[in-house]
């Protein structure tokens, strides 16, 4: 049995350099360096402060919800926790197996058949060959593509692609689950089934971090909420208090 999962972020900051137009050009950099303007140029470079002074610790059992307006840094924070963006300041430590549901079509190749895509995903996740039949069965059962599984993804309907992507992403169970909000979108009939599978996955994970605009989901699933605005933490606490602040009114009573 692996040890307990844990996430620790201390004073994390991430800046996005905005490389556009001239800052992408080698010539401009060389000319600037030669004329002694490099330092100035770098100071004048436009950076977006995507995250600043982010500190929190999560232990096994924690379910963290991220709220905030568009561009507040929710997805960036998920990417930092997933190890995709390395912090520019501070440190982040993540202990435990991890699955980040960020991109619905991660590594999917539309020229390959559904079955080949399943095998490819197994490789991306570094699964041993022996784990493949299990993965294939699981995805096959959930995605309900029947004969289409052996046809190229190119000819799938949009709904079928979503089903395959969702089935693939949720087939691998982690200790730490990071989830972006797109995962909660989909057509109604599929959503019922998808939600059931997702809930099962969330229950199985020791730590979950979820970014969403849907406050009802946060109320049912989360034990703690982080409210981000312009890359900074505005509020951090139990869902009831933070959501009340966030919405500027008492949170609606959860239907569940």
């Amino acid at each position, binding site marked *: 049995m692996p040890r307990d999962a844990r996430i620790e972020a201390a004073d994390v900051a991430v800046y996005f350099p905005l490389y556009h137009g001239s800052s992408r050009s080698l010539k401009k950099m060389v000319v600037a360096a030669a004329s002694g303007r490099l330092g100035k140029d770098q100071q004048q470079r436009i950076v977006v402060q995507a995250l600043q002074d982010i500190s929190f610790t999560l232990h096994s059992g924690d379910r963290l919800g991220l709220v905030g307006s568009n561009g507040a840094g929710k997805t960036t924070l998920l990417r930092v926790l997933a190890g995709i963006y390395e912090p520019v300041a501070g440190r982040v430590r993540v202990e435990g197996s991890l699955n980040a549901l960020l991109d619905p079509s991660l590594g999917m190749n539309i*020229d390959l058949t559904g079955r080949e895509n399943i095998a490819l995903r197994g490789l991306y996740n570094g699964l041993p060959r022996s784990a493949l039949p299990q993965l294939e069965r699981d995805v096959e059962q959930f995605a309900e593509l029947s004969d289409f599984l052996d046809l190229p993804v190119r000819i799938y309907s949009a709904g079928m692609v979503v089903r395959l992507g969702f089935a693939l992403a949720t087939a691998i169970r982690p200790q730490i689950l990071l989830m972006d909000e797109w995962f909660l979108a989909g057509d109604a009939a599929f959503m019922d089934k998808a939600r059931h599978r997702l809930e099962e996955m969330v229950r199985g994970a020791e730590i979950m971090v979820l970014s969403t605009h849907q406050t009802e989901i946060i109320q049912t699933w989360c034990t703690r909420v982080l409210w981000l605005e312009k890359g900074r933490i505005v509020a951090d606490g139990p869902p009831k208090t933070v959501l009340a602040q966030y919405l500027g009114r008492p949170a609606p009573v959860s239907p569940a």
Partner: protein
Amino acid sequence: MTTARNATLDLHAVMSVRARNRLALWDIRDGLRLWRLALTLGWLDIRLRYRGSMLGPLWLTISTGVMVASLGLLYSRLFHMDMRDYLPFLALSQVLWAFLATLVNDSCLTFTESEGVIRSVRMPFSVFSLRILIRNLLVLAHNIIVIVVVFAIYDRWPGWDAVLAVPGLAVWVADALALTMLLGGFCARFRDILPIVNSIMQIAFFLTPVIWKPEQLREMVYLLPFSPFYDLLEVVRGPLLGTPASAMTWLATLLYSGALCGVAWAFFLRARGRIAFWI
């Protein structure tokens, strides 16, 4: 139930050189562990390029064969050379050079062509380097058929000297990985490197004895070992033609390769954590 791999991630903004070295080494180690992924991606790159065509990747062999045959006919006449002597040289040179040139050009796209994956999952960057290397090795394997056919027609087998090409190939592999790291990162940051590299390789093709023979330089031949392109080509081509590379060529190859690997590693130490922001 399929479970994810267990792992610990510990990332600091301020790192000592030792910590940077460790993370870079782990990247290589983890990339090598994912060799089956790199192999599959490299193979898919080729298979999907010829998707739907009847001959598939055999087109690689055919187009190289046609090219070598027509160039051979033309240049043996232009240079007044015997086909029996010239064509095996040309077939070998052309195939090996195509490998080197495509590899250098592909290196520029190492990370940018995998942008989607890099931005949605933490993946060792060396996987993408291996993918480029494997893709090009597979193309080379298809083109070797042309060399074998030409050698068979003119009965020009190199004999046991050919074994000496193996250390040359090992240097190629090391240099290829270094180049993908260096150019892959550099081209992600500076978008005007790619056209520069493309034109350098174009010029290098004419300045390197690929379609012409070194001895045609006459008294200028002593200059050749100064060209890294010539040295690298010769350490593999020489043994296969039955004329193993000189000590001078080997020395230059090792010097150039050492410098390349050193620069690439120093760059990768600094760039590894930034590549995701650049692409």
